[in-house]
Protein backbone atom coordinates (compact mmCIF):
# COMPACT_ATOMS: atom_id res chain seq x y z
CA UNK A 1 0.00 0.00 0.00
CA UNK A 2 1.18 3.51 -0.84
CA UNK A 3 -0.10 6.57 0.97
CA UNK A 4 0.39 10.22 0.11
CA UNK A 5 -0.82 12.50 2.89
CA UNK A 6 -1.53 16.24 2.50
CA UNK A 7 0.91 16.69 -0.37
CA UNK A 8 1.44 20.30 -1.42
CA UNK A 9 3.77 21.13 -4.26
CA UNK A 10 4.64 24.56 -5.67
CA UNK A 11 6.60 25.62 -8.72
CA UNK A 12 7.69 29.12 -7.74
CA UNK A 13 4.55 30.94 -6.64
CA UNK A 14 2.24 28.56 -8.48
CA UNK A 15 0.58 25.86 -6.37
CA UNK A 16 0.46 22.68 -8.46
CA UNK A 17 -0.82 20.33 -5.77
CA UNK A 18 -2.72 21.40 -2.67
CA UNK A 19 -3.24 19.10 0.31
CA UNK A 20 -3.72 15.99 -1.80
CA UNK A 21 -4.26 12.80 0.19
CA UNK A 22 -4.36 9.48 -1.66
CA UNK A 23 -4.18 5.80 -0.67
CA UNK A 24 -3.32 3.13 -3.23
CA UNK A 25 -4.23 -0.44 -2.35
CA UNK A 26 -2.14 -3.53 -2.87
CA UNK A 27 -3.25 -5.91 -5.61
CA UNK A 28 -5.30 -3.22 -7.32
CA UNK A 29 -4.80 -0.94 -10.29
CA UNK A 30 -5.17 2.53 -8.81
CA UNK A 31 -5.75 5.34 -11.26
CA UNK A 32 -5.04 9.06 -11.07
CA UNK A 33 -7.11 10.81 -13.71
CA UNK A 34 -7.69 14.38 -14.81
CA UNK A 35 -7.20 16.82 -17.63
CA UNK A 36 -3.73 17.74 -18.85
CA UNK A 37 -1.93 20.24 -16.63
CA UNK A 38 -3.93 19.46 -13.49
CA UNK A 39 -1.05 17.92 -11.55
CA UNK A 40 -1.39 14.15 -12.14
CA UNK A 41 2.19 13.54 -13.25
CA UNK A 42 3.52 15.93 -10.60
CA UNK A 43 1.69 13.87 -7.97
CA UNK A 44 3.18 10.67 -9.38
CA UNK A 45 6.69 12.17 -9.38
CA UNK A 46 6.20 13.34 -5.78
CA UNK A 47 5.18 9.80 -4.82
CA UNK A 48 8.28 8.19 -6.38
CA UNK A 49 10.61 10.89 -5.04
CA UNK A 50 11.52 12.56 -8.33
CA UNK A 51 10.08 15.84 -7.01
CA UNK A 52 10.56 17.27 -3.55
CA UNK A 53 7.44 18.86 -2.14
CA UNK A 54 6.81 21.62 0.37
CA UNK A 55 4.39 19.77 2.62
CA UNK A 56 3.10 16.25 3.18
CA UNK A 57 4.34 12.73 3.59
CA UNK A 58 4.61 9.58 1.47
CA UNK A 59 4.49 6.11 2.99
CA UNK A 60 5.31 2.80 1.30
CA UNK A 61 3.75 0.06 3.43
CA UNK A 62 4.03 2.30 6.50
CA UNK A 63 7.66 3.21 5.73
CA UNK A 64 8.04 6.99 5.67
CA UNK A 65 9.65 7.35 2.24
CA UNK A 66 9.56 11.14 1.90
CA UNK A 67 11.81 11.82 4.89
CA UNK A 68 14.44 9.21 3.98
CA UNK A 69 17.94 10.07 2.74
CA UNK A 70 19.00 9.13 -0.82
CA UNK A 71 20.74 6.02 0.51
CA UNK A 72 17.78 4.96 2.65
CA UNK A 73 15.40 5.45 -0.27
CA UNK A 74 17.50 3.05 -2.36
CA UNK A 75 16.10 -0.04 -0.65
CA UNK A 76 12.54 1.04 -1.48
CA UNK A 77 13.44 2.18 -4.98
CA UNK A 78 14.62 -1.33 -5.77
CA UNK A 79 11.03 -2.40 -5.12
CA UNK A 80 9.66 0.19 -7.55
CA UNK A 81 9.10 -0.34 -11.26
CA UNK A 82 8.13 2.62 -13.37
CA UNK A 83 6.80 2.99 -16.89
CA UNK A 84 7.38 6.49 -18.23
CA UNK A 85 5.22 8.25 -20.80
CA UNK A 86 7.73 7.83 -23.64
CA UNK A 87 9.12 4.54 -22.33
CA UNK A 88 12.43 6.17 -21.25
CA UNK A 89 14.42 3.27 -22.65
CA UNK A 90 18.17 3.84 -22.77
CA UNK A 91 18.93 4.74 -26.39
CA UNK A 92 22.38 3.19 -26.47
CA UNK A 93 21.17 -0.22 -25.26
CA UNK A 94 19.24 -2.93 -27.05
CA UNK A 95 15.84 -4.06 -25.75
CA UNK A 96 17.46 -7.00 -23.97
CA UNK A 97 20.17 -4.82 -22.42
CA UNK A 98 17.51 -2.39 -21.22
CA UNK A 99 15.69 -5.17 -19.40
CA UNK A 100 18.96 -6.57 -18.05
CA UNK A 101 20.12 -3.17 -16.79
CA UNK A 102 18.44 -3.21 -13.33
CA UNK A 103 19.61 -6.81 -12.90
CA UNK A 104 23.19 -5.76 -13.68
CA UNK A 105 23.02 -2.86 -11.25
CA UNK A 106 21.31 -4.56 -8.32
CA UNK A 107 21.89 -8.31 -8.48
CA UNK A 108 24.83 -10.65 -8.58
CA UNK A 109 23.24 -12.79 -11.30
CA UNK A 110 25.50 -14.36 -13.92
CA UNK A 111 25.19 -13.08 -17.51
CA UNK A 112 23.23 -16.17 -18.61
CA UNK A 113 20.84 -15.87 -15.67
CA UNK A 114 20.26 -12.20 -16.48
CA UNK A 115 19.63 -13.06 -20.13
CA UNK A 116 17.13 -15.76 -19.11
CA UNK A 117 15.31 -13.35 -16.80
CA UNK A 118 15.25 -10.67 -19.53
CA UNK A 119 13.84 -13.17 -22.02
CA UNK A 120 11.20 -14.22 -19.50
CA UNK A 121 10.17 -10.60 -18.89
CA UNK A 122 10.08 -9.84 -22.63
CA UNK A 123 7.96 -12.93 -23.32
CA UNK A 124 5.70 -11.93 -20.39
CA UNK A 125 4.85 -8.72 -22.27
CA UNK A 126 4.35 -10.73 -25.48
CA UNK A 127 7.54 -9.60 -27.18
CA UNK A 128 9.76 -11.97 -29.08
CA UNK A 129 12.68 -11.48 -31.46
CA UNK A 130 13.28 -7.90 -30.35
CA UNK A 131 16.24 -8.66 -28.06
CA UNK A 132 18.87 -7.11 -30.31
CA UNK A 133 16.78 -4.17 -31.48
CA UNK A 134 17.58 -0.64 -30.37
CA UNK A 135 14.75 1.56 -29.01
CA UNK A 136 14.89 3.62 -32.23
CA UNK A 137 13.94 0.46 -34.15
CA UNK A 138 10.88 -0.30 -32.00
CA UNK A 139 7.32 0.95 -32.46
CA UNK A 140 5.62 3.03 -29.73
CA UNK A 141 3.72 0.04 -28.36
CA UNK A 142 6.83 -2.15 -28.38
CA UNK A 143 8.78 0.50 -26.50
CA UNK A 144 6.10 0.62 -23.80
CA UNK A 145 6.15 -3.16 -23.51
CA UNK A 146 9.95 -3.27 -23.24
CA UNK A 147 9.65 -0.57 -20.57
CA UNK A 148 7.12 -2.73 -18.68
CA UNK A 149 9.49 -5.70 -19.02
CA UNK A 150 12.29 -3.57 -17.53
CA UNK A 151 9.96 -2.38 -14.76
CA UNK A 152 9.10 -5.94 -13.69
CA UNK A 153 12.63 -7.36 -14.06
CA UNK A 154 13.37 -7.05 -10.35
CA UNK A 155 9.94 -8.33 -9.22
CA UNK A 156 8.75 -4.95 -7.95
CA UNK A 157 6.28 -4.43 -5.12
CA UNK A 158 5.08 -1.14 -6.60
CA UNK A 159 4.44 -0.31 -10.24
CA UNK A 160 3.95 3.26 -11.47
CA UNK A 161 2.76 4.03 -14.99
CA UNK A 162 2.69 7.55 -16.40
CA UNK A 163 0.18 7.73 -19.23
CA UNK A 164 0.91 4.23 -20.52
CA UNK A 165 -1.48 4.61 -23.46
CA UNK A 166 -0.48 7.98 -24.80
CA UNK A 167 0.26 7.93 -28.51
CA UNK A 168 -0.96 4.38 -29.01
CA UNK A 169 -3.79 3.08 -31.19
CA UNK A 170 -6.87 1.80 -29.27
CA UNK A 171 -6.00 -1.88 -29.71
CA UNK A 172 -2.40 -1.50 -28.53
CA UNK A 173 -3.60 0.76 -25.71
CA UNK A 174 -5.99 -1.98 -24.64
CA UNK A 175 -3.18 -4.53 -24.77
CA UNK A 176 -1.06 -2.37 -22.45
CA UNK A 177 -4.02 -1.97 -20.06
CA UNK A 178 -4.53 -5.74 -20.02
CA UNK A 179 -0.85 -6.28 -19.30
CA UNK A 180 -0.87 -3.84 -16.40
CA UNK A 181 -3.97 -5.51 -14.96
CA UNK A 182 -2.52 -9.01 -15.34
CA UNK A 183 0.84 -8.08 -13.85
CA UNK A 184 -0.84 -6.39 -10.88
CA UNK A 185 -2.84 -9.52 -10.12
CA UNK A 186 -0.05 -11.97 -10.91
CA UNK A 187 2.56 -10.32 -8.66
CA UNK A 188 0.03 -8.91 -6.15
CA UNK A 189 1.63 -5.47 -6.37
CA UNK A 190 0.43 -1.92 -5.80
CA UNK A 191 -0.05 -0.32 -9.19
CA UNK A 192 -0.57 3.40 -9.78
CA UNK A 193 -1.51 4.57 -13.26
CA UNK A 194 -1.76 8.19 -14.39
CA UNK A 195 -4.09 8.54 -17.34
CA UNK A 196 -6.64 10.74 -19.04
CA UNK A 197 -7.92 7.90 -21.18
CA UNK A 198 -11.51 6.94 -20.24
CA UNK A 199 -11.10 3.53 -21.87
CA UNK A 200 -8.36 2.76 -19.34
CA UNK A 201 -10.55 4.02 -16.51
CA UNK A 202 -13.33 1.63 -17.49
CA UNK A 203 -10.93 -1.26 -18.19
CA UNK A 204 -8.64 -1.17 -15.16
CA UNK A 205 -9.89 1.51 -12.76
CA UNK A 206 -10.34 -0.49 -9.58
CA UNK A 207 -9.74 2.66 -7.59
CA UNK A 208 -9.88 6.10 -9.20
CA UNK A 209 -8.71 9.52 -8.00
CA UNK A 210 -9.78 12.58 -10.00
CA UNK A 211 -7.39 15.55 -9.71
CA UNK A 212 -8.73 18.96 -10.68
CA UNK A 213 -6.73 22.19 -10.46
CA UNK A 214 -4.18 20.56 -8.16
CA UNK A 215 -6.77 19.28 -5.68
CA UNK A 216 -8.26 15.89 -5.06
CA UNK A 217 -11.74 16.41 -6.47
CA UNK A 218 -13.29 12.95 -6.39
CA UNK A 219 -12.49 9.34 -5.53
CA UNK A 220 -14.30 6.14 -6.39
CA UNK A 221 -14.06 3.32 -8.89
CA UNK A 222 -14.92 2.51 -12.50
CA UNK A 223 -18.43 1.41 -11.54
CA UNK A 224 -19.56 4.59 -9.84
CA UNK A 225 -17.64 7.07 -12.01
CA UNK A 226 -20.42 6.94 -14.61
CA UNK A 227 -22.97 7.92 -11.96
CA UNK A 228 -21.06 10.89 -10.62
CA UNK A 229 -22.85 14.14 -9.92
CA UNK A 230 -19.59 16.09 -9.62
CA UNK A 231 -19.83 18.65 -12.48
CA UNK A 232 -16.09 18.82 -13.23
CA UNK A 233 -15.76 15.05 -13.29
CA UNK A 234 -18.89 14.75 -15.43
CA UNK A 235 -17.40 17.20 -17.90
CA UNK A 236 -14.20 15.11 -17.98
CA UNK A 237 -15.92 11.72 -18.28
CA UNK A 238 -18.61 12.58 -20.78
CA UNK A 239 -16.58 14.75 -23.10
CA UNK A 240 -16.68 12.41 -26.09
CA UNK A 241 -19.55 11.00 -28.11
CA UNK A 242 -18.56 7.47 -27.09
CA UNK A 243 -18.76 8.15 -23.35
CA UNK A 244 -21.90 10.27 -23.75
CA UNK A 245 -23.56 7.15 -25.15
CA UNK A 246 -22.56 5.30 -21.95
CA UNK A 247 -24.11 7.98 -19.77
CA UNK A 248 -26.76 6.48 -17.52
CA UNK A 249 -30.17 8.07 -17.96
Amino acid at each position, binding site marked *: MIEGINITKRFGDRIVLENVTVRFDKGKTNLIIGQSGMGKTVLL*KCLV*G*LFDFEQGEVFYDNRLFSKMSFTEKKSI*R*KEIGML*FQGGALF*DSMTAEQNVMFPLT*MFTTMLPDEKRDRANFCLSRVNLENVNDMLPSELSGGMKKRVAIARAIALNPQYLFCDEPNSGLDPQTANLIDELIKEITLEYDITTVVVTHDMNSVLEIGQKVYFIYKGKLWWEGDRDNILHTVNPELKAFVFNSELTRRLKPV
Partner: protein
Amino acid sequence: MKILYHFGRYLNLLLKVFKQPEKRAVYRRQFMIEIDNLGYASAGIVAIISVFMGAVLTIQMAFNIDSPLVPLYTIGFATRQSIVLEFAPTIISLILCGKVGSRIASEIGTMRVTEQIDALEVMGINSASFLILPKIMAAMFVFPFLIMMSMVLGVAGGWFAGTTTGLISSYGYVYGIQSFFHMYDIWYALTKTVVFAFIITSVSAYHGYYTKGGALEVGNASTSGVVYSSIAIIFANLILTQLLLA
Protein backbone atom coordinates in the same frame (compact mmCIF):
# COMPACT_ATOMS: atom_id res chain seq x y z
CA MET B 1 23.61 36.50 -8.83
CA LYS B 2 22.80 34.15 -11.68
CA ILE B 3 26.49 33.26 -11.98
CA LEU B 4 26.62 32.38 -8.28
CA TYR B 5 23.46 30.27 -8.65
CA HIS B 6 24.95 28.30 -11.54
CA PHE B 7 28.33 27.96 -9.85
CA GLY B 8 26.69 26.65 -6.67
CA ARG B 9 24.56 24.20 -8.63
CA TYR B 10 27.66 23.10 -10.60
CA LEU B 11 29.52 22.39 -7.34
CA ASN B 12 26.50 20.49 -6.02
CA LEU B 13 26.44 18.38 -9.16
CA LEU B 14 30.16 17.63 -8.77
CA LEU B 15 29.52 16.47 -5.19
CA LYS B 16 26.90 14.06 -6.54
CA VAL B 17 29.24 12.94 -9.34
CA PHE B 18 32.10 12.06 -7.00
CA LYS B 19 30.02 10.08 -4.51
CA GLN B 20 30.93 6.42 -4.04
CA PRO B 21 30.08 4.57 -7.29
CA GLU B 22 27.45 1.85 -6.92
CA LYS B 23 28.88 -0.96 -9.00
CA ARG B 24 32.48 -0.53 -10.01
CA ALA B 25 32.38 -3.13 -12.78
CA VAL B 26 29.64 -1.20 -14.58
CA TYR B 27 31.60 2.05 -14.19
CA ARG B 28 34.73 0.39 -15.56
CA ARG B 29 32.81 -0.72 -18.64
CA GLN B 30 31.35 2.77 -19.08
CA PHE B 31 34.86 4.22 -18.69
CA MET B 32 36.14 2.04 -21.56
CA ILE B 33 33.16 3.02 -23.74
CA GLU B 34 33.82 6.72 -23.05
CA ILE B 35 37.50 6.37 -23.91
CA ASP B 36 36.35 5.15 -27.29
CA ASN B 37 33.65 7.84 -27.67
CA LEU B 38 35.62 10.81 -26.41
CA GLY B 39 39.20 9.87 -27.27
CA TYR B 40 39.52 7.44 -30.15
CA ALA B 41 36.66 9.08 -32.06
CA SER B 42 38.43 12.45 -31.81
CA ALA B 43 41.85 11.23 -32.97
CA GLY B 44 41.16 11.90 -36.66
CA ILE B 45 40.19 15.54 -36.31
CA VAL B 46 43.04 16.17 -33.84
CA ALA B 47 45.53 14.63 -36.29
CA ILE B 48 44.36 16.67 -39.28
CA ILE B 49 44.29 19.97 -37.40
CA SER B 50 47.67 19.34 -35.77
CA VAL B 51 49.49 18.61 -39.04
CA PHE B 52 48.12 21.72 -40.76
CA MET B 53 48.62 23.86 -37.65
CA GLY B 54 52.29 22.84 -37.50
CA ALA B 55 52.73 23.44 -41.23
CA VAL B 56 51.23 26.94 -41.10
CA LEU B 57 53.21 27.84 -37.98
CA THR B 58 56.49 26.88 -39.66
CA ILE B 59 55.73 28.91 -42.79
CA GLN B 60 54.71 31.94 -40.71
CA MET B 61 57.86 31.65 -38.57
CA ALA B 62 60.02 31.48 -41.68
CA PHE B 63 58.44 34.59 -43.18
CA ASN B 64 58.79 36.52 -39.92
CA ILE B 65 62.45 35.67 -39.47
CA ASP B 66 64.08 37.86 -42.08
CA SER B 67 67.13 38.97 -40.14
CA PRO B 68 70.40 37.19 -41.10
CA LEU B 69 71.40 37.45 -37.42
CA VAL B 70 68.69 34.96 -36.40
CA PRO B 71 69.74 31.39 -37.21
CA LEU B 72 67.27 29.40 -39.36
CA TYR B 73 66.98 26.59 -36.82
CA THR B 74 64.99 29.12 -34.76
CA ILE B 75 62.06 28.20 -37.03
CA GLY B 76 62.07 24.63 -35.71
CA PHE B 77 62.63 25.79 -32.14
CA ALA B 78 59.82 28.40 -32.25
CA THR B 79 57.42 25.99 -33.95
CA ARG B 80 58.04 23.35 -31.29
CA GLN B 81 57.65 25.81 -28.43
CA SER B 82 54.43 27.25 -29.84
CA ILE B 83 52.96 23.82 -30.41
CA VAL B 84 54.02 22.31 -27.09
CA LEU B 85 53.21 25.28 -24.86
CA GLU B 86 50.04 26.59 -26.40
CA PHE B 87 48.72 25.24 -29.67
CA ALA B 88 48.48 21.57 -28.75
CA PRO B 89 47.12 21.86 -25.19
CA THR B 90 44.94 24.95 -25.57
CA ILE B 91 43.81 25.15 -29.20
CA ILE B 92 43.24 21.40 -29.49
CA SER B 93 41.38 21.48 -26.17
CA LEU B 94 39.15 24.24 -27.53
CA ILE B 95 38.49 22.10 -30.60
CA LEU B 96 37.77 19.09 -28.40
CA CYS B 97 35.50 21.34 -26.39
CA GLY B 98 33.41 21.87 -29.52
CA LYS B 99 33.39 18.23 -30.51
CA VAL B 100 33.25 16.42 -27.18
CA GLY B 101 31.48 19.13 -25.17
CA SER B 102 28.54 19.40 -27.54
CA ARG B 103 28.29 15.62 -27.67
CA ILE B 104 28.19 15.30 -23.88
CA ALA B 105 25.70 18.14 -23.37
CA SER B 106 23.34 16.92 -26.08
CA GLU B 107 23.58 13.26 -25.00
CA ILE B 108 22.82 14.00 -21.35
CA GLY B 109 20.29 16.70 -22.29
CA THR B 110 18.39 14.25 -24.50
CA MET B 111 18.44 11.70 -21.68
CA ARG B 112 16.98 14.35 -19.39
CA VAL B 113 14.11 15.43 -21.67
CA THR B 114 13.22 11.84 -22.59
CA GLU B 115 13.07 10.92 -18.87
CA GLN B 116 15.95 8.43 -19.09
CA ILE B 117 17.63 10.22 -16.17
CA ASP B 118 14.38 10.03 -14.18
CA ALA B 119 14.30 6.29 -14.95
CA LEU B 120 17.79 5.92 -13.44
CA GLU B 121 16.81 7.93 -10.36
CA VAL B 122 13.63 5.90 -9.80
CA MET B 123 15.75 2.75 -9.89
CA GLY B 124 17.84 4.23 -7.07
CA ILE B 125 20.90 4.91 -9.21
CA ASN B 126 22.93 8.08 -8.69
CA SER B 127 22.37 9.32 -12.25
CA ALA B 128 24.93 12.15 -12.03
CA SER B 129 27.68 9.78 -10.99
CA PHE B 130 26.63 7.02 -13.40
CA LEU B 131 26.48 9.31 -16.44
CA ILE B 132 29.15 11.92 -15.76
CA LEU B 133 31.93 10.29 -13.73
CA PRO B 134 33.04 7.84 -16.47
CA LYS B 135 33.12 10.73 -18.98
CA ILE B 136 35.26 12.93 -16.72
CA MET B 137 37.67 10.12 -15.88
CA ALA B 138 37.91 8.95 -19.50
CA ALA B 139 38.58 12.47 -20.81
CA MET B 140 41.20 13.16 -18.13
CA PHE B 141 42.87 9.88 -19.04
CA VAL B 142 42.72 10.02 -22.82
CA PHE B 143 43.10 13.73 -23.64
CA PRO B 144 46.82 13.83 -22.66
CA PHE B 145 47.46 11.08 -25.23
CA LEU B 146 45.61 13.10 -27.88
CA ILE B 147 47.62 16.19 -27.00
CA MET B 148 50.92 14.26 -27.16
CA MET B 149 49.86 12.95 -30.55
CA SER B 150 49.01 16.50 -31.56
CA MET B 151 52.47 17.71 -30.50
CA VAL B 152 54.21 15.04 -32.54
CA LEU B 153 52.04 15.55 -35.61
CA GLY B 154 52.25 19.35 -35.35
CA VAL B 155 56.04 19.27 -35.29
CA ALA B 156 56.04 16.72 -38.13
CA GLY B 157 53.65 18.91 -40.15
CA GLY B 158 56.03 21.83 -39.64
CA TRP B 159 58.97 19.75 -40.85
CA PHE B 160 57.05 18.66 -43.94
CA ALA B 161 55.97 22.21 -44.84
CA GLY B 162 59.40 23.71 -44.10
CA THR B 163 61.40 21.20 -46.07
CA THR B 164 59.08 20.78 -49.05
CA THR B 165 58.80 24.55 -49.56
CA GLY B 166 62.56 24.97 -49.17
CA LEU B 167 62.24 27.43 -46.28
CA ILE B 168 64.52 25.36 -44.05
CA SER B 169 66.64 22.26 -44.40
CA SER B 170 65.63 19.05 -42.70
CA TYR B 171 68.79 19.17 -40.58
CA GLY B 172 68.14 22.77 -39.53
CA TYR B 173 64.55 22.05 -38.54
CA VAL B 174 65.44 18.91 -36.56
CA TYR B 175 68.30 20.78 -34.87
CA GLY B 176 65.81 23.52 -33.97
CA ILE B 177 63.23 21.23 -32.43
CA GLN B 178 65.96 19.59 -30.32
CA SER B 179 67.36 22.90 -29.06
CA PHE B 180 66.76 24.19 -25.53
CA PHE B 181 64.34 21.37 -24.76
CA HIS B 182 62.92 21.29 -21.23
CA MET B 183 60.87 18.30 -20.12
CA TYR B 184 58.97 20.64 -17.83
CA ASP B 185 57.29 22.19 -20.89
CA ILE B 186 55.66 18.84 -21.64
CA TRP B 187 54.50 18.41 -18.04
CA TYR B 188 53.13 21.95 -18.10
CA ALA B 189 51.17 21.20 -21.29
CA LEU B 190 49.85 17.89 -19.97
CA THR B 191 48.85 19.42 -16.64
CA LYS B 192 46.85 22.05 -18.51
CA THR B 193 45.30 19.32 -20.67
CA VAL B 194 44.07 17.33 -17.67
CA VAL B 195 42.48 20.45 -16.17
CA PHE B 196 40.91 21.35 -19.52
CA ALA B 197 39.55 17.81 -19.90
CA PHE B 198 37.87 18.14 -16.51
CA ILE B 199 36.41 21.52 -17.45
CA ILE B 200 35.10 20.37 -20.85
CA THR B 201 33.37 17.27 -19.52
CA SER B 202 32.01 18.67 -16.27
CA VAL B 203 30.76 22.02 -17.62
CA SER B 204 29.13 20.41 -20.68
CA ALA B 205 27.61 17.67 -18.53
CA TYR B 206 26.25 20.34 -16.16
CA HIS B 207 24.45 22.08 -19.01
CA GLY B 208 23.06 18.79 -20.31
CA TYR B 209 22.04 17.49 -16.89
CA TYR B 210 19.84 20.47 -16.05
CA THR B 211 18.18 20.77 -19.47
CA LYS B 212 14.44 21.41 -19.33
CA GLY B 213 12.04 21.25 -22.26
CA GLY B 214 12.55 19.61 -25.63
CA ALA B 215 14.73 19.49 -28.72
CA LEU B 216 15.26 23.26 -28.82
CA GLU B 217 16.49 23.32 -25.23
CA VAL B 218 18.82 20.38 -25.88
CA GLY B 219 20.35 22.43 -28.71
CA ASN B 220 20.66 25.42 -26.39
CA ALA B 221 22.27 23.26 -23.70
CA SER B 222 24.77 21.97 -26.23
CA THR B 223 25.68 25.51 -27.32
CA SER B 224 25.91 26.75 -23.72
CA GLY B 225 28.09 23.79 -22.79
CA VAL B 226 30.58 24.63 -25.52
CA VAL B 227 30.54 28.39 -24.90
CA TYR B 228 30.95 28.23 -21.13
CA SER B 229 33.57 25.50 -21.16
CA SER B 230 35.54 27.47 -23.79
CA ILE B 231 35.45 30.56 -21.58
CA ALA B 232 36.42 28.48 -18.54
CA ILE B 233 39.36 26.99 -20.50
CA ILE B 234 40.65 30.43 -21.43
CA PHE B 235 40.49 31.61 -17.81
CA ALA B 236 42.07 28.40 -16.53
CA ASN B 237 44.81 28.73 -19.15
CA LEU B 238 45.75 32.16 -17.84
CA ILE B 239 45.73 31.05 -14.21
CA LEU B 240 47.66 27.82 -14.84
CA THR B 241 50.25 29.62 -16.97
CA GLN B 242 50.79 32.15 -14.20
CA LEU B 243 51.01 29.39 -11.59
CA LEU B 244 53.20 26.96 -13.51
CA LEU B 245 55.48 29.20 -15.56
CA ALA B 246 55.81 32.45 -13.64
